[in-house]
């Protein structure tokens, strides 16, 4: 059971991530964000539920959507470093070299594969290292549904299961792969079924319910820390935004209908958890307002910091490629 403080922390992280998303959208519109922004709005409960209570020395891999917003922020990377990286400033998490590829090994976040699904095999290697080090570290690797089409998952899943590596595979199933519905490319209802061929637990969980996500991951994380090997958790959610912010919103060759999106907007994970906590008496309306205000202040300050930071010095190009 979660304590009151833990529930407050989960809720606060949901709100922080939502406010950061809003700042990123503004950054795209003002031309400060370099490249694109793939909003994870409506899917925050997955990453926040899975990573808020990880140890600092645990490792995380995150899906392309949100560029890690729902995992690296709960894990401890600062919104300043996140936004500054997207503005390609030298104060960014990767000194302005990575843009949407936010990383900081101090928080166990090594980066994001440019080719989707490239992270699975790296997670297997971090699992090998975590097992060798024997300090109880785990690897939480949350990837989008589309990436599970890559052979890399199957190769990594086999290795992890065979060697009982401390890894939790997460599917953030938002039902879309750019314009292609996942149901068009995956023949079964549940991607969690992929687990059984590798002899690991496969669980389906409501991805809009942050507590349900937390509990499913907690069970798998404890199992991994105990040396019993990997698990696969499929979180059912839905992409309410287009593939990238402002992009034409297609389904196959046509357009996606608002009627399809509407029911999922009502299942907003932040609102759902807020209602529940108000009902349980964990939060008062005054708490809700304060958490909102503090999150907005935090993100606006981070945005100002990023805007005012200098661009990277081109001399860095001579230093970054090799260690010496």
């Amino acid at each position: 059971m979660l304590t009151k403080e833990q529930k407050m922390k989960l809720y606060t992280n949901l709100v922080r991530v939502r406010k950061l998303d809003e700042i990123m959208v503004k950054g795209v519109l003002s031309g400060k964000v370099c490249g694109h922004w793939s909003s994870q709005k409506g899917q925050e409960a997955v990453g926040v539920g899975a990573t808020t209570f990880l140890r600092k020395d645990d490792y995380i891999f995150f899906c392309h959507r949100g560029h890690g917003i729902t995992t690296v922020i709960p894990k401890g990377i600062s919104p300043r470093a996140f936004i500054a990286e997207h503005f390609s400033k030298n104060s960014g998490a990767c000194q302005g070299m990575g843009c949407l590829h936010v990383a900081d090994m101090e928080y166990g976040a090594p980066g994001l594969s440019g080719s989707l699904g490239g992270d699975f095999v790296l997670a297997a290697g971090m699992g090998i290292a975590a097992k060798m080090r024997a300090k109880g570290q785990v690897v939480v690797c949350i990837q989008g549904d589309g990436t599970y089409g890559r052979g890399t998952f199957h190769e990594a899943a086999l290795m992890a299961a065979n060697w009982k590596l401390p890894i939790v595979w997460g599917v953030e199933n938002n039902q879309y792969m750019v314009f292609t519905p996942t149901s068009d490319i995956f023949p079964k209802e549940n991607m969690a079924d992929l687990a059984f061929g590798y002899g690991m637990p496969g669980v389906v969980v409501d991805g809009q319910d942050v507590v349900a996500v937390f509990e499913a991951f907690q069970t798998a994380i404890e199992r991994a820390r105990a040396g019993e090997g990997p698990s696969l958790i499929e979180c059912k959610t839905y992409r309410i935004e287009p593939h990238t912010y402002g992009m034409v919103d297609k389904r196959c060759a046509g357009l996606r209908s608002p009627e399809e999106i509407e029911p999922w907007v009502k299942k907003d994970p932040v609102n759902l958890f807020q209602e529940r906590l108000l009902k349980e008496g964990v939060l008062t309306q005054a708490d809700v307002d304060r958490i909102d205000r503090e999150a907005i202040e935090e993100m606006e300050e981070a945005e100002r910091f990023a805007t005012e930071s200098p661009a990277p010095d081109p001399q860095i190009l001579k230093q970054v490629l090799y260690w010496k």
Partner: protein
Amino acid sequence: MREVRFIQAINEALLEEMKRDETVFIFGECVRGGTFPHTNGLFEKFGKDRVLDTSISENAIAGAAVGAALAGYRPIAELMFSDFFLIAGDEICNKAAKWRFTHGMKLKMPIVYMASTGGYIRSDSEHSQSVESLIMHTPGLRIAIPTTPYDAKGLLKTAIRDDDPVVYLYHKLLLTKKGEIPDEEYTIPFGLADVKKEGKDVTVVAVGFMVDLSLGVANKLQERGISVEVIDPRTLEPFDIDTIVTSVKKTKRVVIVDEDTLRCGVTGEIGMQIMEKAFDYLDAPIQRVAAANCPIPAGWYLEEHVLPQPPDIAAAILKVLGKDMDISDMKKEKVGFDAVKAFGDLGITKVKQN
């Protein structure tokens, strides 16, 4: 003749060839919806059996193309970004490229591997690469890199009809480029370079998008009395060295421009072929312009320090001519902003940037 965009030219070639030959089909990630909309309209016209959306499975896309080709079809495998050829290296470079050779020349391999290529879009190191040197390096693969709508259509039709595996690369920044194409059917043979601009003082051999940058520089230098000939090889395998040698015999000076890295990039190969065939005609050492030996950084500020820029091309031309001239008016290619606008024109994005 009529004016079309580069992307329409690709689209027309796909439509015409799929109509002409029902063994031609296209598959890849989001080809129905078209992340680059050159596949628009194909699904409506040819249906789900010939226009197939795949999972994110580059190995399966590239490998299934080999299997379908072996079984008598003419697959077009769309890989979206040429960076992802590295994922499917075994299927493209070992299977598609080598199986005809390995299995006694009895197998046809009529595959087109299509993908966008190149940078200047301020994306990142895994979405901005130019891989032509890797492909040109691999015996068994053909490679076509069009730079005009006319070439895009004619080369793609040839690629689809070719019985060998062809890598066909379209540069992201060329997709909105306009140009004239004839109303009647045409194809462009492989291995035939095109002189995009005639000149007498120096030969610039430019690959892909570098043709456009080089033409821009050549036009500016023309005003200052320097006559630059710009040659677009159009295909790197087969490679038309003869057209280049003919030009070198006239100009005696060569600059080679490519967007791939300098080290082991195609500029080195092309330069050496010129040395072997036309050394006696050269009045100065060959100059090369290519990307720095460095991954392409993401973000607003650093890409221009890695990828070739118009001032670099101008400086190389002046150097090979032994001239000194003020070229401060030649600007770097800050095109990230324009790319967003271009994608807006193509209907890929609706975002307006201030």
